[in-house]
């Protein structure tokens, strides 16, 4: 995948992209949450 043979390397390459997407998704989903205490 991605022109890389070793699954340990393309796996890391893929996980980097997926973990960045996780951050974006989590942040956007909770964009307006967490201000409750500002109670």
């Amino acid at each position, binding site marked *: 995948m991605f022109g890389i043979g070793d699954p340990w390397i393309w796996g890391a390459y893929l996980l980097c992209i997926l973990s960045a997407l996780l951050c974006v998704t989590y942040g956007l989903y*909770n964009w307006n949450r967490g*201000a409750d205490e*500002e109670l």
Partner: protein
Amino acid sequence: MYITVIIIIYLAITAFLGYLGYKKTNSAADYLVAGRKAHPLIMALSYGASFISTSAIIGFGGAAGQLGMGLLWLTFLNIFIGIFIAFVVFGKRTRKIGHNLDAHTFPELLGLRFESKFIQGFAGVVIFLFMPIYAASVIKGGADFIQSYFGIPFHISLIAFVAVVAMYAFMGGIKGVMYTDAFQGLLMFAGMTFLIIFTYSKLGGITEAHQQLSGLYTDPAILEQTAALTKGGFDGWTSMPRLGTPIWWNLVSTVVLGVGIGVVAQPQLVVRFMTVKSNKELNRAVVSGGIFILMMTGVAFTVGALTNVFFVQETGSVSLIAAGGNDKIIPEFIKRYVPGWFGPVFLITLLAAAMSTLSSQFHTMGSALGRDVYEKSMGGRGKSIVISKAAMLVGVLISTGIAWLTSFLDVSMAIIATGTSLFFGLCAASFLPAYIGALFIKRMPRAAAVWGMISGFVTSFFWIFFIHEKESASLQLCALITGKPSLVKDTLLAPLAMVDPIIVALPVSLIVTAVLTFALKQDLSIVHLEKCFSGIKAGKREIPGGATVRV
């Protein structure tokens, strides 16, 4: 002329933002935690820019040029643990408990949570004594590039570089540091985005570039150049090193785990969580934080490995040989292969990366010695801001001295990456168990936190100076006492000399902390614990007037 104008504009904006921080700093809370009202984008960029320094771009980028794309596991941990887990799991409780206890620094958070002046003082001393090694690595990275690009002697580059950063960190406090960090973070993002687009497009696209890099390791001439590396476990730039070999241990234990886990307990990053007023800011900061780190370390490590294709095509030599040293791979690549106009832009990118990290380090060293050790643990009197500033100057001088000494060391040592890993690993072993307990384990007694920190620090210190040969050989204390670079050399335990301190010291401190938590009785009052965890317990609280909100 072009480069001079760009640098003058950059420094002018940086100076203005530092001045803005100075003007808006009216109290110790402003100087140390930005009055707890930082904007989420400024906080996220400041966190990312402090996290990513020349160590990541030049030091670890150079390591990727030597060892290959296996370093991308560090990028994954940087994003998943360094951003997602750090913000979502650790950040929210750190912010809330920090607010509840009015903590201004990471050692103060631990000290107040466990009602222990010893914890605050001990953490402050560890930070003040060892952070200069990390700061010296960052200074060396910045000064190396200025020397390489402008031909200015190393010692002059070093002093000019430190003086500029110390000036605005000294005057502007954390507000000045965070404003300049955010500006520098944007520049870093732009510079690294161009670099990855340029590199991939020059090599014919993502797949084509990786295939060319894989192909290098089948060339007999290249195999001859990398023979020593291959003997150590290297298996090509698009493969992991062979399991259990010295290079595998270095990559996995020192670089990936040492830095990847160590980031959670970095005092200069933890304090960022205490600068925002609610969890909403942390949720929003996760978005820009994740993308920022991907574009920093992901790009540096990928481009670092791909430099081999460029160097081999032009010189016939792999990056390490063609550039003349691990820490020179990225600067030489920029100088030789990237369009002329981008050189100054990348210089600004690197200056921004180095300055943003260094200013945070200077600020943290100042608060560690000034507030945590002198003011709070020793009961010293005086104006908090003045004490922190005086302590910062001491830290700046020590860091500069160490950076100057590194110019006499062997260039093949990967000094920048080693110095960074050492500090990250030491912080994880010393602080992480107590930090986890402070945030999540209400019943953890003070003694468990104290002995967990001491056991982690002592184990780490012993392993660095007497076992892990990469460090013990260059520190020479073991050789002075025993005549051997490592205690385990030429014994049945010799493989332990390859194992990074964090692999041993962190489990030791976790076990000591856990055993004492369950063996000892709670010695903190219920009232104190209620104060610490106020507003954290899951459930609903009533707003006067009848409505309820989820807390």
